[in-house]
């Protein structure tokens, strides 16, 4: 105990000298002070705090975490993280990056050593909505889903607070989108999938009967994406976005690969192959469920890009086309805008036997010559 209290006294006096150093010296040697107490950055994230050991005299390196702690200003809870002692510094790495714009305090043995603020990033660019799919001006009455593509990874769990559907420029339509937790994002968190409530789309289901179809044929709608939606760096959208569309007739037919028309480039050219789909199909599935296979059964490398409001598909090969037979292979999960896939309609009568042959892959052959 005696040793402890002696140690404490020692620590306290050293801390006092440390504080004198910290708070008096900056006036004389501001630059030097800046160099002594620094933030460890990883990209734009403040991942750690570097405290020179000379500011922590008398600290026992074996139990640093018992003597030093970091907390939010006006809060007494120590921030969870790990303490590493290097030759000259104590490095604190919080479990999650420090939050920009917040103030933190460094405490040593119950004394405030230093307050610091993680600066806001003035250079950061605001995220933008790149596209809303389908891009069409007219969508079917039984439109099943929309995708929203952003320029940067976005915060999750915010979608239903930041998207509004407005009918005929007057009424905001409630409960149109299915409230899903977790939300359906791609891995990069840049594309969000939103389902229009399937229970309201399917005819005769109770939600459909109680609330009706989410959309009304012949009506005009506007999707409004609020500026408040923030990216993972906490920056809100550069601007609010509105997209108008009109609702057409119900789509009650599955896409038919057999009817697609393929415009084939000449051998030796690297021009894109063009597939005419005759109707707008799902943008993301077009990019993921269609592949070109050569006569040896190998995948032809290249880039698939839907065009003309998702009614055509371009395939640009990595190398020039060779003469020969090819096949466009399409997974049955490819859907049109109403969720009808190659095997079945989204809203089908299951009391009727499926007459259509169920296949996993549909094929359309073509020849380069």
């Amino acid at each position, binding site marked *: 105990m005696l040793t402890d209290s002696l140690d404490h006294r020692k620590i306290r006096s050293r801390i006092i000298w440390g504080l004198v150093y910290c708070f008096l010296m900056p006036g004389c040697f501001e630059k030097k002070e800046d160099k002594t107490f620094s933030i460890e950055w990883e990209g734009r*994230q403040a991942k750690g705090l570097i405290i020179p050991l000379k500011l922590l005299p008398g600290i026992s390196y074996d139990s640093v975490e018992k003597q030093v702690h*970091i*907390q*939010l200003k006006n*809060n007494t*809870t120590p*921030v*969870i*993280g790990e303490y590493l002692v290097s030759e000259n510094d104590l490095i604190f790495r919080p479990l*999650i*990056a*420090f*939050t920009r714009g*917040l103030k933190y305090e460094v405490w040593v043995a119950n004394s405030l050593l230093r307050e610091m603020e993680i600066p806001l990033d003035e250079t950061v660019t605001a995220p933008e909505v790149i596209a809303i799919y389908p891009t069409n001006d007219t969508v079917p009455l039984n439109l*099943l889903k929309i995708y929203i593509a952003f320029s940067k*990874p976005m915060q*999750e*769990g915010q979608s239903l607070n930041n998207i509004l559907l407005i009918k005929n420029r007057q009424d905001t339509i409630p409960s149109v989108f299915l*409230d*899903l*937790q*977790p*939300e*359906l*994002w*791609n*891995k990069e*968190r840049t594309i969000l*999938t939103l*389902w229009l*409530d*399937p*229970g309201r789309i*399917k*005819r*005769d*289901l*109770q*939600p459909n*009967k*109680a*609330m009706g179809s989410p959309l009304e044929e012949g009506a005009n709608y506007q999707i409004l994406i609020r500026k408040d939606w*923030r990216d*993972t760096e906490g920056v809100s959208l550069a601007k609010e976005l509105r997209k108008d569309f009109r609702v057409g007739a119900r789509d009650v037919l599955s896409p038919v690969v057999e009817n697609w028309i393929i415009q084939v480039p000449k051998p030796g050219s690297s021009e894109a192959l063009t597939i005419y789909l005759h109707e707008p199909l*799902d943008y*993301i*599935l077009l990019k*993921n*469920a269609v*592949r070109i*296979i050569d006569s040896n059964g*190998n*995948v032809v*490398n290249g880039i698939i890009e839907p065009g003309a409001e998702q009614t055509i598909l371009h395939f640009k090969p990595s190398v020039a086309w060779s003469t020969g037979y090819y096949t466009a292979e399409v997974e049955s*999960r*490819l*859907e049109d805008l109403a969720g009808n*896939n190659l095997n079945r309609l989204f809203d089908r*009568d*299951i009391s009727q036997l499926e007459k259509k042959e169920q296949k996993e892959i549909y094929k359309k052959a073509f020849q380069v010559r």
Partner: protein
Amino acid sequence: MKKLYFFVVACAAFILLIAANPSANHPYGLKNGTPAVQSISALAFGPDGILFIGDSKSATVFAIDTKDKTVVEKAAAVEVKNVDQKIAAALGTEVKNIRITDIAVNPVSKKVYCAVQTNDGTPVLLTIDGTKVEAVSLKDIPFSNISIANVPGNDAKDRNGRPLRDQSISDLNYADGSVLLSGLSNQEFGSSFRKIGFPFNDKQEQASLEIFHAAHGKYETNSPIRTFTTAELNGKKYLVASYTCTPLVLFPLDELKAGKHVKGRTVAEFGAGNSPIDMVTLKKDGHSYLFMANSNRPVMRINYKSIETYEGTLTEPIKESYATAGVNFVTLPAVNVIQMDKLDDSQVLVLQRRANGDLDLWTASGDRWI
């Protein structure tokens, strides 16, 4: 002498083999390392303190050994007011920057585990002990993992470079040596239900599930399961699942086999305009009760006996808006319950958004709720 020499060499070789194979020390085929968890959508405990982490972002299920195996029979009631503020402070940030994605209680130690997703996308696994929030380190721990990116059994047919599917995990449970998982694609409209044997091996089974949504049975509902549990009813094991607009559906567990199309039996409709959130089973006086938290309805209590005795299936449409049908249930005075898990045999851990906006973690006793 020669024999003894060979014996010594054989022993040494065996010891070396054991030492060289860290997994030999871990049951369930776990190996030491740092699991690359990218998100935590769902948590569920398995045997012996094994925690399953459903990671939607990497389309992976991780099994980690928490080494939290001290047996506690009766848990102390958990009461943490403004738990989100306490977690945010411990993480050195503000409440608006975090989301609690799941809570799970270790059935061995009764310790509370909590998954948090920060706005910058960092996943965090914490324990809450009293009012103390601590991190669960994922560095150099025994773990194993299995990908759910592809449809089981289809890998061989997949050609090089076929993009992995994104799979959002809506619920995860462990029962009878298997991890059960419901998921939803972010591309095609399709839900999946998987049964993955544990210890993990190459075998996964995926069945397609179909329900009648108390409509007239004419139109299919290929809706994703939002929450589920397992239960033994009349001596047979069932998957008890609930969907958006709240049908309660039973699927015999032994029928959930690879590639099989299983039709569920809808035993209740708990009302449209609602999504089920979590299910917990408690027992009292020899009776089992199912508790279900909901997005737009209070917590419901259903006596499993009512489910056992309900032999029919709902195939008629519900004509009255928001009306219910099928097995009886009781609504409890608990609304806006966001998460639930069983704390012990007689208590339920509840994460609830109070009317004043506070997010509290508290304990409901079975005596009060039953």
